[in-house]
């Protein structure tokens, strides 16, 4: 896996201030609008979402690129690999 710090997301969704499953729903909202191939970064202040979002991506066959833990928030990277 390429170094996550080098990944440039096509779009960044700041979902801090929402509670589980808020960050996941924000990701879905954005992913529906983006074209296939787009890399989306979700910023979550909720620890659960860092585990939840990868689970969801696996379930719906979209790509999980990784997660970076920052101070008090998480940067979750996903790639839209097919239409939804």
């Amino acid at each position, binding site marked *: 896996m390429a170094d996550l710090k080098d990944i440039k997301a096509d779009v960044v969704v700041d979902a801090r201030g929402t*509670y589980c*499953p808020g960050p996941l729903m924000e990701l*879905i*909202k954005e992913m529906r609008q983006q074209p296939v191939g787009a890399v989306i970064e979700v910023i979550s202040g909720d620890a659960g979402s860092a585990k*939840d979002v990868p689970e*969801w991506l696996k*379930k719906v066959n979209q790509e999980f690129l990784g997660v970076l833990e920052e101070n008090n928030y998480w940067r979750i990277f996903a790639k839209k690999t097919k239409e939804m």
Partner: protein
Amino acid sequence: MGEFNKLAIILESEDYEKAHVAAMIASVAAVSCIEVSIFVTMNAIYNFLKVNVKENKFTGGKIFEKLKEKKAQMFYDMLDQAKMFGGLKIYACSMVMDLLDLKKEDLIDIVDDHLGLAAFLGIMEGAQTITF
């Protein structure tokens, strides 16, 4: 256990927290390719009345107070969003509607229809069922 692709939720309690957790589970399931149906019955119907939603009149405990304080998304907004993203249907119990003389217009718009138990039992066929 077979493939998990159908979920039925029976929402019976008026407790706000139960409506909230039901909405959380329903939302995540609906966006995970699971067909979700919620049956709103007994005291839970009060949380789906337009008049109560408009006045934010719910019965809840400590977590409800926290959710309000932190301005978390309300259960009905969560359900509304989930309906846009996935397969989620909400049905009100016909018996309770009759008992309280309610019409569909008295319920918030996210309610799709009202059903009797025979119809909801049909929906429950082959579904995982949770009751709140």
